[in-house]
């Protein structure tokens, strides 16, 4: 019996010793990203830049790789002036992207990092033609366009350069709400009560002017009620590619039917049907 107690005691003591080691180390929790509400009414550029700073260091997980040499696995961003670096890269003969200025270069490098790979930082065996960086607008990082803009604003502002990014519009906020990854991520947003709210919720107004014939991405809808009947209006939302207005490419999202409630769809259709110019 004494052998049993001795060996059990030894085993338990060793187990507890290992547990003790875990208590000697920093106790840090790795929280899942939490969506933050942004009050666009009171949002200043300073707030927006601070939001970019926070995303860069937390949700964006950028600092996992972008560290000062020799620890980094990607170019050091915090230690250099990104506006200067971006301008240099745009002039580089190896640059094959479509950006024309610092802001568009930064955006391009975030959503399509392989457009320009800094020498020595490409994927192994790719001869610097492919970047190991994930596309930040896709999972697992999945930044919204507003969050990407905030990061760009911070990248420009951190070294005292001019911030060229505009503050977010209500449409961008709606996009963030729709792509929310918080506690109820994956659920459809709550149904809205009016047609105007529905138009914001589904970001229709970011591509269609409601009170003029101006072309944004799609045609202006000020007189759409005189051109299309109720049935055509409904079809143009549910199945936008069935009939595409002349001179436009089929760019409208085709998933509204699975996102909108029937009531929302009917509200938008009736609202548009009354728009007769």
């Amino acid at each position: 019996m004494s052998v049993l107690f001795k060996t059990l005691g030894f085993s338990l003591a060793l187990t507890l010793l290992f547990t003790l080691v875990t208590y000697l180390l920093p106790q840090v929790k790795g929280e899942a990203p939490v969506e933050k509400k942004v009050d666009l009414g009171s949002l200043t550029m300073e707030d927006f830049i601070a939001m970019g700073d926070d995303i860069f260091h937390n949700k964006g997980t950028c600092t996992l790789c972008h560290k000062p040499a020799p620890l980094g696995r990607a170019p050091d961003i915090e230690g250099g002036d990104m506006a200067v670096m971006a301008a240099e890269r745009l002039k580089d003969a190896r640059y094959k992207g479509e950006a024309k200025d610092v802001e568009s270069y930064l955006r391009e490098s975030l959503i399509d990092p392989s457009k320009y790979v800094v020498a020595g930082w490409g994927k192994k065996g790719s001869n610097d033609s492919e970047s190991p960086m994930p596309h930040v607008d896709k999972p697992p990082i999945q930044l919204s366009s507003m969050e990407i803009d905030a990061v760009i604003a911070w990248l420009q502002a951190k070294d005292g350069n001019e911030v060229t990014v505009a503050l977010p519009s209500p449409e961008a906020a709606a996009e963030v709400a729709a792509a929310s990854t918080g506690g109820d991520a994956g659920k459809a947003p709550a149904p809205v009560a009016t047609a105007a709210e529905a138009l914001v919720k589904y970001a229709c107004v970011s591509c269609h002017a409601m009170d003029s014939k101006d072309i944004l991405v799609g045609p202006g809808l000020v007189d759409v009620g005189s051109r299309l009947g109720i049935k055509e209006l409904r079809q143009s939302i549910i199945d936008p590619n069935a009939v595409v207005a002349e001179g436009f490419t089929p760019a409208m999202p085709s998933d509204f039917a699975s996102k909108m409630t029937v009531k929302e769809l009917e509200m938008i259709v009736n609202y548009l049907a009354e728009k007769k110019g």
Partner: protein
Amino acid sequence: MLQQTLITDKVGAAHWVLALFSLILMSSIVLAVKPAYAGMGSAEERIAPVGEVRLQGQPPAEIAPAPAELETEDVDLAAAPQPGRKDYPNIGMSSRAIVWVLAQMHLFFGALVLAVPLFVLMIELVGVYTDDDRYDDMAHEFMKISLTGFSITAIFGGSLTLALFMLYPDFMGYMMHVFGTQVLVYASLFFFESFFLYTYYYGWNAFRYGNLKWVHLTLGLLLNASGLTIMVLANSWATFMMAPSGVNEVGAVVGNIWEIMKGPLWNPINLHRFVANIAFGGAVVGAYAAFKFLSSKDPETRAHYDWMGYTSNFIAILAFLPLPFAGYWLMAEIYAYSQQMGITAMGGILAWLFIVQAVLIGTILLAGNFYLWSGMSRTEGSVRYKGLIKVIAFVLVVSFLIWVTPHTLILSASEISLLGGSHHHILGPLGIMPAKNIAVNLMLIATFLSFQLYRRSDKVATVRWAPLGNALMVAVYVAAVVNIIFLGVYYGYFTNTVYKVGSSVAQVSTTLVVIVAGLVIDTLMFKKAKILPSHWGRIPDRSQYALFALPIAFTWLMALMGYVRSSVKTHWHVYTVMKDNSPDNFIPTIGYAGNMITLVTILFLLCVLFMFWVANLSGSKQPQPAAGGKA
């Protein structure tokens, strides 16, 4: 006779018709059940049933479409569900903690019962080739002590499955949708495994000699084949969750089951678990031998269990030596799949856990070496190597201290000013990977040297070229140590990260060269060696505690690394495809993880004690009570 044949044919034909009918019936049921989940996303189904809206020019959609119309693309292209917080049942305690304990216990016992038959088969084969019954008896005893482990594995596996379905219904629904009938194949393999297990174990003495022995070995082989297939199928679920393949970016299945299973991390995990299971299994049965050794006063019994403990330790350490290389391959594949995931493990929040890993592996190597040095007392020939043991111990301790040196410390402002910066000017450089790579490789080389000296201690080489062989061996060690230190220092501190990682491959290769060269030289040099007498059982009692330290450290290590492997997915059930929105979707602190790991280690220890107790029970016999009912 003819009539009988016809009747048999008719019965056979009737069976075929019945089977065909059943197949059609089952297909109909499957087709009827399938759309409830699969067709959720289409416009017609969502809107048309209301009766107000439908696509122009199209007939009203049917609420319950005919089965024949369901084989559309939509059926297979159902996206992964995205459950919200409220979709996770709340039972008043952490769902993750419940699944954590059950999964880890299942894995511990699963690893044990997969590994034991593997080395049992090897030992049995050695027994056949050496014609030494001791090997056969030991192999049989290893099987006996692990037999209850199969039932315990199944109990925890069943409990885990129920817990997962209850606590994570959407996730499990998705996994069933993705893997489909593969899970039934997995379940059916348990029938095969049970069949081969029981015939292998209970048939041991019935199929012991002659040709029947080969029947027995074949049963053992088939037992291992079914066990390994079970393992690789289950591994595919874990690796799918880490690096999904065969699905598109929203998780809809676009590939066949092979494409789903064969993700980028599948084979690295298969190899890593296969090797680690053997080390783990060897360590656990070693503890059994140590316990029996310490409990006995009979020299013959002590000699038997000393030999059994030595064999177990041999298996554990031999399997353990290549494990870092399998781990290296796994991490390299993780980095290739997602640099972000790799750095989350090695340089992000989970990086601190590798300090604990260093403590655990250091414990394993120190315990393994200590046991080998203690074992040298079995033979007089070991006095030749006593001096070298001190050098090995020094290298092990220094390397261990370098390995556990952290890179960054959480310091107060006054501490930073006292230190002269956030990193200590001497200890700071020891915290980064190049120093640790040097330390790990030197520890592995030192352990191999201990092993080599132990193996040599009861032999005297008789070949003429023995001095040359020794000189060659020394040259290999010296060149390897110099090369490992040079590669680590030059490429680790004077070039950028890309070369740093590349140089670690060369360091690992150097260590492998030492191991292979050592085995080849010793095999040739000691071919017709003079054998000095060995005295099994002549080993200090304290050495047996090393055989307890090994399984405790292995168990803790296995739970720790399993936790790291699972946590690199961060807040995803299936990385990039299905988010974890449960209340436990964060990475807990190291202290919390330590508590959980200790809990499962103690539970495992208790279950293993039960398993050993049951094994001993089968050999016990109550004396017949005397008249009057008193014993």
